[in-house]
């Protein structure tokens, strides 16, 4: 006579190894692979931290991806310990050598007060809005959640800041700070595409916020209608994950470098002039900093501003979107960021050139650890305005 379902499960349980939740709890973080075999609606209410989430029906097809090593210690669990027992039997048959099923399942784990993670789910509207990101393996739901959690600071809502603000808003970067003390001017509109003719005279941070939230109302836009200086930079940039440098002067570029190295915040840096653009990512202590690349600023005759010499209106779009791309890569952890490399774009010849940038072992800033610099020192930045006066 065929066994009943309950008898079958009892038989399987007698053939596999089981582990009590208290003993299993000791194994968390010790290189043991936890696998949750419940359905996604059950997992949505919580799961063991770090567990791989593989519904029982997908176990055979997905376990190789989650636990490729057959000798790896695996703890399986479900809600009560029955499905995980069956799953343990399956894994044994697949050649896994050290598999245990957790008795009492996640219910008992929770009852004993052990920690668990509740996965955050995107809303239906978010799943639709970011559906094209979801389809890209390098981003997917996890990467989109990282974007939604990210805080990115844009220095300047001008030529470079406009395209980065537009696309980072569209991409769903959760918090975007903008530092700019200027108002929209008619001469900006040839390239600063986040602003509009009817907003001439409006503060750029307000104009940018209006466009960004029109694209994506979820983005929390934090406005700093001020000019970065040594008295406010540490306060403003602290807490941001990535900084996008699109400022139009050397004093602020050097000041930003020193403060971002101190706080270990990566800077995606671009500059433009005429038909030429430069782009690099300065990741403190991982790669070179701005001072490693440019130890001192050039004199005024070699450093004209866009205001003095002009710039192709499309160019900040090209360079700003390369910046936005690097920002997204840094946040989701995809690809090879432009760290230790300088990308030159020459629009007239339509050429890209890549140069190596090395860390300078004698760099006055990043050759020192941040904690080697005293608080008193950190509060006082050199007088960059005087230092760079000629280069303005």
């Amino acid at each position, binding site marked *: 006579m065929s066994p009943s379902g309950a008898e079958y499960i009892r038989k399987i349980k007698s053939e596999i190894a089981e582990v009590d939740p208290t003993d299993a709890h000791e194994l968390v973080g010790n290189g043991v692979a936890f696998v949750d075999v419940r359905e996604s609606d059950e997992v949505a209410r919580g799961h063991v931290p770090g567990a791989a989430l593989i519904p029982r029906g997908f176990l055979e097809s997905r376990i190789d991806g989650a636990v490729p090593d057959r000798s790896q210690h695996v703890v399986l669990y479900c809600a009560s310990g029955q499905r995980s027992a069956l799953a343990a039997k399956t894994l044994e048959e697949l050649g896994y050598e050290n598999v245990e099923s957790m008795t009492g399942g996640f219910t008992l784990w929770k009852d004993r007060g052990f920690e668990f993670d509740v996965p955050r789910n995107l809303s239906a509207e978010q799943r639709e809005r970011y559906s094209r990101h979801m389809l890209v393996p390098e981003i997917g739901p996890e990467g989109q959640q990282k974007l939604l959690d990210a805080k990115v600071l844009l220095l300047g809502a001008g*030529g470079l800041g406009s395209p980065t603000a537009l696309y980072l808003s569209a991409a769903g970067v959760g918090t975007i700070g903008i530092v700019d003390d200027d108002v929209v001017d008619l001469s900006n509109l040839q390239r600063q595409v986040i602003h509009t003719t009817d907003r001439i005279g409006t503060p750029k941070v307000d104009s940018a916020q209006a466009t960004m939230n029109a694209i994506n109302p979820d983005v929390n836009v934090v406005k700093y209608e001020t000019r970065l200086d040594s008295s406010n930079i540490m306060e403003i940039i602290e807490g941001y994950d990535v900084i996008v440098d699109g400022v139009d002067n050397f004093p602020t*570029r050097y000041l930003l470098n020193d403060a971002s190295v101190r706080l270990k915040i990566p800077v995606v840096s671009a500059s433009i002039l*005429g*038909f030429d653009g430069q782009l690099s990512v300065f990741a403190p202590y991982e790669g070179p900093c701005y001072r490693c*690349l440019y130890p001192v600023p*050039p004199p005024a005759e*070699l450093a004209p501003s866009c205001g003095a010499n002009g710039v192709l209106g499309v160019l900040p779009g090209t360079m700003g979107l390369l910046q936005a791309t690097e920002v997204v890569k840094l946040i989701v952890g995809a690809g090879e960021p432009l760290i230790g490399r300088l990308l030159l774009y020459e629009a007239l010849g339509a050429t890209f050139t890549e*140069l190596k940038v090395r860390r300078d072992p004698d760099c006055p800033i990043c050759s020192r650890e941040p904690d080697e610099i005293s608080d008193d020192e950190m509060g006082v930045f050199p007088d960059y305005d005087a230092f760079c006066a000629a280069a303005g």
Partner: protein
Amino acid sequence: MAVVRIPPVLRASTGGAKEVDAGGDNVGDVLRSLAQTHPDTEAQLFAERGELNRYVNVYLNDEDVRVLDGLDTPVGGSDVLVILPAMAGG
């Protein structure tokens, strides 16, 4: 002859040329040859004692000559020198 790429801010000193051929066995010779042909570039490239101005980056192909042998870095006929000043436009 190596090819020297001229940045936009120096092109007024080279008659608008984006690239200039210049002879020399090392980086210093090539740049001095450039300065001879286009004298306006000299003060922008070299400091008083003949060393490179600190604000001028020079790359042999894709490598900064500061991490090679500086002005003494050997240059071959098929090499490209890139002169690169910082830019601050945004």
